[in-house]
């Protein structure tokens, strides 16, 4: 009874259609991301609990510069979106994978997995070269950012999630503890990101976009920033990009390359997992490299 009264009262408060739309978008992003997040934390828990540490030493080349592209290419097999890859990358680092390689995986996994590439193919029926351009530009960005981290990154910027307190009595217990911890942690930061994206979705007038489309360079930057703000799941972003018909193919490619690697919900989740000092450096670097690679690959493949 009290519950229904509270509901009635709140409903009358939330009469503003803009606020209502923002609430819908917030819940939509959260609900859409949740199954992928659960998949991601189950995977990261499985890595923590069942895969022996020595496996990674054997699976990845001992040369760290070589491990980066190998880990980036391994991203192609995780059929998830960006929410899943954050906890998985965290688990990889904890298990001794060199951070640069884990970061290349973090960037490439949501961008070049088969589901994402197929949906890109379906969304751009007349332009199969879009699939290739997305694959090349995303992979190149992931590898370059990985190498940049290897060359310039300082260990103190990155907080590798340490978790001796998550080691249970049995592997199964460790699995549960890790899954619970990672979900609560990443889920909380997903909420922040979804809130920011919902607010932006409602606050930015769509007419701004039309004004940007006419200038080639502004169009590319506009699409890149829109990808950051909208925080759309990488499995759906191709359809959204395809609909911006007034923008050049290169601008739309930028949207597809930036979105899975840098967006509001990801930045929030990354700062939660790896620390603010990390996110403050990693996200802008990735953004710049992703935009640069998109322009380069777009000029090469899409004109």
């Amino acid at each position, binding site marked *: 009874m009290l519950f229904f009264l*509270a*509901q009635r009262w*709140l*409903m009358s408060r*939330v009469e503003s*259609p803009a606020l*209502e*739309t923002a609430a*819908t*978008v*917030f*819940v*939509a992003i959260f*609900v*859409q991301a*949740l*199954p992928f*997040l*659960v*998949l991601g934390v*189950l995977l990261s828990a499985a890595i923590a609990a069942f895969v022996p540490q020595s496996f990674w030493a054997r699976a990845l080349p001992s040369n760290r510069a070589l491990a980066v592209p190998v880990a980036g290419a391994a991203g192609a097999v995780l059929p998830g979106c960006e929410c899943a890859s954050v906890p998985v990358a965290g688990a990889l680092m904890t298990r001794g994978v060199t951070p640069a390689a884990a970061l290349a995986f973090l960037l490439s996994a949501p961008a070049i997995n088969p589901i994402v590439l197929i949906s890109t193919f379906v969304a751009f*029926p*007349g332009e199969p070269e879009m699939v290739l351009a997305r694959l090349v530009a995303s992979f190149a960005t992931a590898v370059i950012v990985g190498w940049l981290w290897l060359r310039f990154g300082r260990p103190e910027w990155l*907080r590798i*999630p340490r*978790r*001796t*307190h998550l080691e249970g009595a049995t592997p199964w217990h460790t699995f*549960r503890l890790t*899954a*619970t*911890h990672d*979900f*609560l*942690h990443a*889920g*909380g*930061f997903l*909420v*922040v990101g*979804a*809130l920011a*994206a*919902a607010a932006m*979705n409602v606050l930015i*007038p*769509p007419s701004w976009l039309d004004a940007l489309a006419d200038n080639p360079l502004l169009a590319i930057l506009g699409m890149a920033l829109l990808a950051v703000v*909208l925080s*759309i*799941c990488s*499995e*759906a972003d191709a*359809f959204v990009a*395809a*609909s911006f*018909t007034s923008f050049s193919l290169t601008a739309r490619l930028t949207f597809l390359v930036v979105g899975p690697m840098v967006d509001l919900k990801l930045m929030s989740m990354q*700062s*939660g997992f790896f*620390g*603010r000092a990390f996110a403050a450096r990693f996200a802008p670097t990735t953004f710049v490299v992703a935009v640069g690679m998109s322009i380069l690959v777009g000029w090469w493949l899409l004109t």
Partner: protein
Amino acid sequence: MIREVQGIILMLVGIVILRISWGTAYLDYVKESMRPWLLASGAILVILGVLALVDALRRGGVSEAEAQRSDEEIVFDGVEGDHDHAHGGPRAAWLLVLPILVVFVVAPPALGAWAAARDTTNSVAAQQALPPLPPGDPVPVFLSDYVTRAVWEQGVSLEGRTVELTGFAVSTDDGGWQLARMQIQCCAADAFASKVQPVGLPPDFADVPENTWLTVTGQWVPGDAAADGSPGATPSSSAIPLVQVGSIAVVPEPVNPYD
């Protein structure tokens, strides 16, 4: 965060997801194809939550020394101040209370007239020739499909057919209204609106409150409401095609509010 609360939050998130995907409420936010994944992840969260709660209650019986030891183990994890693991749980988890509350208390509805009115792109160019409409008189057609056929194929596949369009009313600046429906690719964050302008409305339907769901049965006529109704205008993504109203009725909101 104490461990009991962790378990409860996990359970509640799981219950929220199960509750909306058990019925049809999830269709206000995501596509129908998400349902099995939502049910599975909701169930997994409830199980993890129950196990965490059982753990926590059992742990209530451990000795003081043991609890002390496990807290010490945890402290080094907080290299930065924002990562507080005291009492064994991430502080960020509290934020999960927000979506739980929003879904249970506010239950935001599907996107409606406000979102539709601000979307200035009405359709995307058809990438390939569209197949003829299925048989039926009238034939139910999605609004987005109607708009694409009318704008980008100049109504060729609509000519001579009676169509049935379902959508909600969006008020226009001139005091009239248009029939609109949102389309989603993945979730409501990526929604687009499709709009048509009904012409020849019966007097009782000249003015309809926003967000009223209606079914219009009628026929395609050339013209573009966005460009002063000049027939034969060049196809454009902002063109709003017309429909000559044969009959019109107020209907309940469809189970799936999106195209």
